[in-house]
């Protein structure tokens, strides 16, 4: 009898445990181990790890996050993909590498491409950066767009407002055009007060070229000629030395002269330090600037961090006609600098279903929303819900700061004429050439036209070396143009 009682109790307990486990594993990936790879943390890797814990609890699967230094990540992924090994189930990579990876990636399951969570992803990611030749091959897990940051206290100071209007003839406010941006920079150039007009990255190897692209996008991302900013999408001839780009570079050089001394050695880290340290009246860059500057532990200007979209222009260079086109209103071309980390599943993975499920969890509104407001994850907003939920940001920003910050992020990624970053095989060969010539132009060793002519010549040579037809096909795909 005692044995019977014990036996039946054990059965009941086992039944409970079993059903509890089933309830906990939804869907049940018990025994499945996913290997995910990305760059060495904390940025991006910590987001993968945080999500891994939650996913493991939810599905009973396991995620092993393998990190490689930035310089080793590309070769590790590319060799595993090209050799056909199933080394990784999930890869988190820089969007610029997409052209080399897409042939080896599995397509996102159709059920992930519908519903509220799908619609919640900002269109520029959902319709452009995640898509390659009409197929969704990756999922954005980080948003990257350049925005504008300014000091509310300086801009709202009555004396500043009066003096600015007297000098320039219009109201002091976040700039509509890059010309106004330079006016503002000039106005606040006050070295005797340890205050400078602006802060941007100018250092070779310090994210410099993305800042230059942000300037140039306003003059080269023609609304009627999509995908023509960097190359002629018909011939793959470099466009980087056309008058629009030259104007962008001239203004970028002027910005350098209105930035703190030695700003030529600024990478993005120094831009954030300068703005948060109260040394710059305004700056441009990724969303990190606003978050860092709003944090009283890191910043002298917390509570006074205003945000807006990048300035634009009412004139855009038309490469087809070879003329400047004048527009009735300012055309904003917020630049998707870098473009945001992508997560994808290689076709060789034996756990594709589980891997996509993990990506779905990682990028779900709740998990990604928390990552976006957690310092050190490197995740910036890329969902509409990231920028609409003010409560999510209330610990970081004041109400006005949050509204402006999230408004700028949201308007930028949803802008009609948003400018996509270049994504090409051999991306860093192109950008290295550009960095060298930019540095020469910034140091006054070459004129803007000379520097960009040199870049164009070398870009065309690289295109020929890598195969013009291949490069053209990749470029068109990256810009969402049909092949």
């Amino acid at each position, binding site marked *: 009898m005692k044995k019977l009682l014990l036996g039946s109790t054990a059965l009941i307990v086992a039944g409970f445990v079993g059903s509890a486990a089933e309830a906990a594993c939804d869907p049940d990936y018990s025994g499945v181990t996913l290997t995910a790879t990305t760059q060495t943390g904390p940025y991006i890797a910590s987001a993968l790890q945080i999500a891994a814990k939650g996913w493991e609890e939810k599905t009973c699967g396991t995620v092993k996050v393998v990190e490689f230094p930035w310089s080793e990540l590309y070769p590790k992924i590319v060799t595993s993909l090209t050799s056909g090994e199933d080394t990784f189930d999930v890869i988190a990579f820089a969007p610029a590498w997409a052209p080399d990876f897409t042939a080896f990636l599995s397509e996102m399951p159709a059920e992930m491409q519908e519903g509220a969570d799908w619609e919640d992803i900002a269109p520029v990611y959902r319709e452009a950066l995640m898509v390659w030749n009409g197929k969704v091959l990756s999922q954005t897990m980080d948003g990257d767009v350049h925005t504008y940051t300014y000091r509310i206290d300086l801009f709202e100071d009555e004396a500043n407002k009066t003096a600015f209007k007297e000098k320039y003839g219009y109201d002091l406010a976040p700039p509509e055009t890059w010309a106004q941006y330079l006016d503002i920079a000039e106005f606040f150039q006050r070295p005797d007060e340890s205050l400078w007009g602006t802060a941007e990255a100018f250092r070779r190897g*310090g994210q410099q070229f993305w800042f230059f692209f942000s300037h140039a996008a306003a003059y080269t991302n023609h609304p009627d000629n999509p995908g023509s900013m960097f190359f002629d999408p018909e011939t793959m001839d470099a466009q980087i030395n056309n008058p629009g780009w030259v104007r962008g570079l001239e203004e970028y050089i002027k910005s350098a002269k209105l930035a703190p001394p030695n700003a030529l050695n600024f990478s993005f880290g120094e831009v954030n330090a300068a703005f948060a340290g109260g040394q710059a009246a305004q700056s441009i860059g990724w969303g990190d600037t606003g978050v860092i500057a709003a944090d009283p532990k890191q910043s002298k200007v917390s509570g006074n961090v205003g945000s807006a979209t990048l300035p634009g222009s009412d004139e855009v260079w038309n490469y087809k006609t070879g003329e400047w086109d004048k527009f009735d209103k300012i055309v904003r071309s917020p630049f998707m600098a870098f473009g945001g980390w992508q997560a994808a599943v290689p076709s060789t993975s034996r756990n594709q279903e589980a891997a996509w499920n993990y990506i779905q969890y990682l990028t779900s509104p709740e998990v990604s929303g928390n990552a976006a407001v957690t310092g050190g994850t490197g995740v910036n907003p890329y969902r509409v819900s990231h920028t609409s939920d003010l409560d999510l940001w209330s610990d970081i920003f004041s109400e006005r700061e949050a509204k402006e910050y999230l408004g700028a992020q949201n308007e930028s990624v949803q802008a009609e004429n948003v400018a996509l970053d270049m994504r090409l095989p*051999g991306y860093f060969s192109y950008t290295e050439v550009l960095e060298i010539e930019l540095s020469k132009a910034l140091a006054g060793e070459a004129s803007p036209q000379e520097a960009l002519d040199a870049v164009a010549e070398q870009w065309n040579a690289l295109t020929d070396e890598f195969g013009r037809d291949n490069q053209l096909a990749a470029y068109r795909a990256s810009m969402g143009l049909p092949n």
Partner: protein
Amino acid sequence: MMRQDPAKHYFIWPALLVVLVVTIFPLVYSLTTSFMSLRLVPPLPSRFIGFDNYTSLLANPRFWHVAGTTSLIAFTAVALQYVIGFAVALALNSRVPGEGVFRVGFLIPMLVAPVAVALIARQVLNPTMGPLNEFMTLLGFPNLPFLTQTAWALGAIIAVEVWQWTPFVILMLLAGLQTLPNDVYEAAELENATPWQQFWGITFPMLLPISVAVVFIRLIESYKIIDTVFVMTGGGPGISTETLTLFAYQEGFKKFNLGYTSALSFLLLIFITIIGLVYLAILRPYLEKHK
């Protein structure tokens, strides 16, 4: 007479295999790669191109510019390290009070990782937040473009190299000085030789062998400089502070142009070997003379 014990094979062959795998194979593999067109990005099929990578490099003005910059940094920094190091070693050898503290103090820079040293230097030379420019401004001088104008940037890199590696020269020369026999100096003093005469007649010649070795080691090490430059200037402005190793890094780890990078590495090896041979050939007569 050679022993015919077959047991020797159990010890010799594994050791030889280890040497082959660890040392010779990577070298041969790298040499082979230098004759190939091998790019990881974009992943083009590799092909044999003979000496094309080498001729392309030798025809590339950037290579010669970078080689010139590296030579300038290496020769200037090592010359300053040697002069300053010798002077400090002589001072420490004179049994000054607190010599032990000085000795430890002077050695600290050498123990710090070059990346950390470069980061500290970058902060010290920061125009708005760095103490050096703040001090200069206090004295009424303008902010100086330490890391953004070619001449200043090269000077800053050389200064950091000198600061970090002079202790190595001090250490080696001090060890050499402490082995010099006292009786030679006593004899010189009996002959009323001045300290200056004693230095040029006794100390310098007797330390010549160790000086040659120290300068040789430092010169080779200086030619491989990358971390300091990478952190302080990134090779800019333009390519004006770029060094050979940084150039190789850019080609290898940014552009993943492996064939070209291997050729560049072998050219660097040849470059350093030639400099070493010339250096030793020039000094050989002096070394023979003071043997």
